[in-house]
């Protein structure tokens, strides 16, 4: 029978198939961070349980870390307690930790691939909804809650019911300056923020095959914003080239064996998906969110929609609430929206290619007066690489701030926050009310779009910006 990539990985990881109750699947890699793990470790201790496979568990600190200093004494006490707790837990249970001071520390979904921990065919979980990022390698990766973190720590497995499958084909060639961020925002706009609920999405088609690994990660990363727990892309030569030589990648004779296995993973021809969606790459334009849900999105050529014209009452109310919160009027051109802050970073767009693209835009120019722009690399390695290439100097000379790695203003758990009423052009993944700071207003977009917004002080179509 023809199988989807998801079905192959699922079946290969069944420890026990459901007998009218629940299936148990094996977890190959468990990533851990400081926010969603303390209660799980505490419960293990309370129940006198061990971490079953410490060598399959890897931890880092990302949500709370300061991006201004590496001096933990300068971080506020509650954040410090949470980071100290992770250190103690990792030490007690024998888990490898990349702590705030480690040169390889970074956002959990940036360092996994970077270290070669993320590989095709694996099941990967983390107490973080953006775990879907790792699916870009052809792995089954999804976010879990803290009770499930505890379950994986104790058993190296999860109880799961089998999700449905969705295929999203994106064929054709992307336009100039149109990025993978625009692809995923377009997908979310099309299927809605609950369109993927209950599904694992596989992204395929020639436009996906043309993308680099980093661009693919951006797409899978935001699958959760379409309601899907996992997004996947079939591994190919681009995947293998990315992995080869990384710290934890298969070495020696294992490499050939691994690649041979990975080549069996892509969905079989004529494999059946529960739902199929086709999008033409040529139709995708730079996308910008106008509301407080990632599905409230339009193109940079568009206008803020008029809720009165929405037929569905629930959608209309949601749009009215969003416009009130965002302080926007229907009919306003997206390219007329002024911004106060710019955030370039996050597990969605904090990788080296994102920084290169943003740097290319701002090189030799200046951030608009009154705009504060910060660039937060996704990891210590991304930061180091950027500095080797001189990107830090390009940003600094253009008036952007150059920070240390962390989740930063994607969710503002540290001191990188929007103030009430501030409007931000952001490369992150969520435009929820208060997400980047209480009362803050977020417009999601690609790194090149955010970079142009920083220079112009307003949302601007990167395609007509003279570079």
């Amino acid at each position, binding site marked *: 029978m023809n199988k989807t990539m998801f079905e192959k990985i699922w079946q290969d990881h069944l420890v026990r198939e459901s007998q009218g109750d629940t299936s148990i699947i094996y977890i190959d890699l468990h990533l851990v961070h400081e926010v969603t793990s303390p209660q799980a470790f505490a419960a293990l201790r309370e129940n006198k349980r061990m971490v079953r496979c410490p060598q399959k568990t890897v931890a880092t600190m990302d949500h709370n870390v300061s991006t201004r200093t590496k001096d933990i004494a300068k971080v506020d006490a509650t954040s410090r307690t949470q980071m100290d707790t992770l250190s103690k837990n990792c030490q007690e249970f024998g888990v490898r930790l990349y702590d705030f001071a480690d040169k390889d520390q970074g956002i959990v979904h940036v360092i996994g691939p970077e270290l070669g921990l993320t590989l095709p065919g694996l099941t990967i979980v983390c*107490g973080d909804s953006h775990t879907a990022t790792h699916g870009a390698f052809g792995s089954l990766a999804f976010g879990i809650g803290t*009770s499930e973190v505890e379950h994986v720590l104790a058993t190296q497995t999860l109880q799961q*019911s089998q999700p449905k499958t969705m295929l999203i084909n994106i064929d054709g060639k992307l336009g100039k300056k149109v990025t993978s961020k625009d692809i995923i925002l377009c997908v979310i706009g099309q299927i809605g923020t609950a369109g993927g609920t209950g599904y694992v999405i596989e992204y395929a088609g020639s436009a996906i095959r043309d993308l680099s690994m980093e661009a693919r990660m951006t797409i899978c990363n935001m699958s*959760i914003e379409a309601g899907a727990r996992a997004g996947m892309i079939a591994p190919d030569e681009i995947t293998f080239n990315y992995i080869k030589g990384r710290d934890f990648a298969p070495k020696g004779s294992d490499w050939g064996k691994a690649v041979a296995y990975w080549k069996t993973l892509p969905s079989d021809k004529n494999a059946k998906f529960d739902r199929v969606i086709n999008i033409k790459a040529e139709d995708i334009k730079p996308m910008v969110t106008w509301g407080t*849900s990632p599905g409230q999105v339009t193109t940079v050529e568009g206008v803020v929609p008029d809720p009165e014209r929405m037929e569905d009452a*629930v959608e209309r109310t949601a749009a009215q609430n969003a416009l009130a919160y965002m302080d926007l009027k229907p009919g306003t051109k997206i390219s007329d929206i002024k911004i106060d802050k710019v955030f370039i970073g996050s597990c969605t767009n904090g990788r080296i290619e994102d920084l290169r693209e943003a740097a290319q835009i701002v090189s030799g120019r200046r951030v608009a007066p009154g705009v504060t722009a910060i660039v937060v690399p996704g990891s210590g390695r991304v930061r180091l690489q950027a500095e080797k290439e001189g990107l830090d100097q390009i940003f600094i000379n253009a008036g952007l701030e150059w920070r240390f790695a962390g989740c930063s203003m994607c969710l503002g758990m540290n001191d990188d926050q929007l103030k009430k009423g501030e409007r931000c052009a952001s490369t992150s993944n969520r435009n929820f009310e208060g997400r980047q700071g209480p009362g803050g207003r977020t417009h999601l977009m690609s790194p090149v779009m955010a970079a142009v917004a920083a220079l112009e002080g307003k949302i601007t179509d990167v395609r007509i910006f003279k570079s």
Partner: protein
Amino acid sequence: MQPFKFHSGIAAFVNRVNVDTDAIIPKQFLRKIEKVGFGKHLFHEWRYSDYEGTRENPDFILNQEPYRKATVLLARDNFGCGSSREHAPWALGDFGFRLIIAPSFADIFYNNCVKNGILLAQLKSQEVDEIFTFVEKNKGAVISADLPAQTVTAGGKTYSFAIDAFNKECLLKGLDGIGWTLQFQDKIAAYENKIKNQYPWLSRG
């Protein structure tokens, strides 16, 4: 985990779609290392008019009588979307909610609620509309749930909901999920032996 069999209580309602877990419990409260004490921060930004949470917003339903004692929450589509934070069900549970009714829920949030003894009853959109009309007209109306029968009763009408058999069992018994899985330890060990040979590159030192 507290088992769930039957429940009756005052129903509060949040008439918004896509209520995300950032709205249920904002980030500034995720830095605790315990599971308790999140209830007073539930829906923080809607519930209080200041960042510190010292001034209640009188317009928000949970600041009004009798909804301060609500244990049932009526909601709209895609409730609990966004972040996987289990702090969201911890906050809902700590406030006192045991039953949430909506036309759809986000996946991770659904699982997290089951693990915390909170029943999510997914009803058809028109049924939820009907219940909204009923509770909006009848201040402090009580809604009941009967998990063994898989029904919700509101305004004299009974509605059926579907639930996965295993989730139902977990809720009814207050099952320790880890304990359940550990009865298959031999199968886990056998699987680990198999992959050691099949995928040798996965055996990291």
